[in-house]
């Protein structure tokens, strides 16, 4: 379980997170929605301690991670986390196989001879069986995301963080990534935390959605609850996003998302 307690973070005096409070339960597929620049990615980076919050506490399975300063302690803590970066963040100089096995050396005690087997297994999960010898520059946008996802799950983390997983992808590839996220959650029993402004993604795969607005969580609930929310910010955001973001073929007869949350 991840408990976020009154987290504040400012950059150059400008508050990005302002007393954000939230609890993410084990096994959830939890989406954080909100407009660009509202602090969604900052929140994720605070949870994995890529950024240190100015104040507040973040408890991961009861352990407060905000005050850990030792890099070794943080490295141990990160064994629990997988992180899918917005652009994939694959290492350019390494092949897909090397990228996927990269974290195994640092995060696990698995013998090196097992690496190729694990990598192939994870690449098969994301449908990239034949790409193991390719370099990131040779992959398409969707393949990069899938390879990055294979890397994120290679060490079998307990929590996986997705930073804008469908941004920059075409609708078909977006669908594929959505299905992958659902599959990962179902097959690997991973707690998924997704930050996105893709409202369609959030409504399709989340078990719970929270809206980050002006630095804190304004509303949270199931996709159905958010869809029927009377909160004007949520209403405006979801309607605007659905009308402008979702391709016509995915919208229901009412102009909203045609797919139901799982």
């Amino acid at each position: 379980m991840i408990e976020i307690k009154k987290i504040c973070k400012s950059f150059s005096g400008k508050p990005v997170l302002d007393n954000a409070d939230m609890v993410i339960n084990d096994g959830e597929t939890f989406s954080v929605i909100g407009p660009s620049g509202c602090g969604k990615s900052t929140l994720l980076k605070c949870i994995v301690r890529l950024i240190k919050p100015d104040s507040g506490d973040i408890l991961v399975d009861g352990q407060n991670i905000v005050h850990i300063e030792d890099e070794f302690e943080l490295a141990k803590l990160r064994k629990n986390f997988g992180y899918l970066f917005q652009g994939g963040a694959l290492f350019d100089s390494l092949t897909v196989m090397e990228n996927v096995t990269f974290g195994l050396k640092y995060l696990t005690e698995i013998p090196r001879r097992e690496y190729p087997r694990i990598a192939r297994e994870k690449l098969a999960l994301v449908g990239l069986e034949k790409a193991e010898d390719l370099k990131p520059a040779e992959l398409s946008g969707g393949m990069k995301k899938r390879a990055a996802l294979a890397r994120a799950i290679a060490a079998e983390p307990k929590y996986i963080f997705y930073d804008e997983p469908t941004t920059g992808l075409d609708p078909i590839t977006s669908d594929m990534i959505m299905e992958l996220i659902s599959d990962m959650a179902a097959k690997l029993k991973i707690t998924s935390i997704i930050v996105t402004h893709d409202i369609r993604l959030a409504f399709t795969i989340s078990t719970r959605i929270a809206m980050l607005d002006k630095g804190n969580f304004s509303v949270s609930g199931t996709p159905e609850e958010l869809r029927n929310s009377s909160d004007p910010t949520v209403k405006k955001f979801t309607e605007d996003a659905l009308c402008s973001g979702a391709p016509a073929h995915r919208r229901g007869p009412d102009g909203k998302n045609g797919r139901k949350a799982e």
Partner: protein
Amino acid sequence: MKHYFLEGAGRRATALAENLGAVALMIKSMVVWLFKARPEVREIVRQSVRIGVDSLAVTILTSFFTGMVLALQMGYTSKNLFNEPLYIGTMVAFSLVKELAPVLTSIVIAGRVGAAVTAEIGTMKVTEQIDALYTLGTNPARYLLIPRYAAFILTIPLLTIFADFTGIFGGFLVSTIKFHVPNSVYWNDIFTFMQIKNFMHGFLKTFAFAGMIATVSCYKGLTCEAGAEGVGKATTEAVVLSMVLVMVLDYFISAMLVAVGII
């Protein structure tokens, strides 16, 4: 007017202090990881090949022609002054071994590899690959900095030795072909006067140059601003700063070595 000058000077002094502090923290982080974790031998080898082996040809070419031009200039100068080419070997060897080989090799490496290191680390930073290192259980000090520092410190002194030999050989060719100086005279001019400490004077400096080039190129990469423009700017700054600092360090280290008797 005075007010603006003071404000500008204050701002620059603050920025300099901040940068020096950040460099100190970067080095501290490396030292900590150096003792706490096993070194990335594969990365050290990979970087050494990239910095050393791949730079060998350009280093040899540079020093070869430097040796040749030194012999040419010394030959004509001594012919004008004394009517015959004297001490070409001595002049070429001392100039190369003590100054030109270490400085030129370092400048070539700063331009060729320092720039590439800054661009690579800078690109990794703006594409979140540095953040990815943290999430995968390592960090830039361990995976990026230590191997690059080790590679610079291992290869620049070795390349300098190659540069010494090829430069002296270049001088030998000009001396014997152009000025018809006998082989034995050329080599005798070198070995009569050259001592180990003369060689050490140039060789020891290369360690300082290597450490400085590694520091500048890695630091500029890690602190580069977002976007292609940021990476380009950081790369240019790294090359210019490295080259200037090679010259500045050269004077002070030479003075220090002379003071301790390594002349």
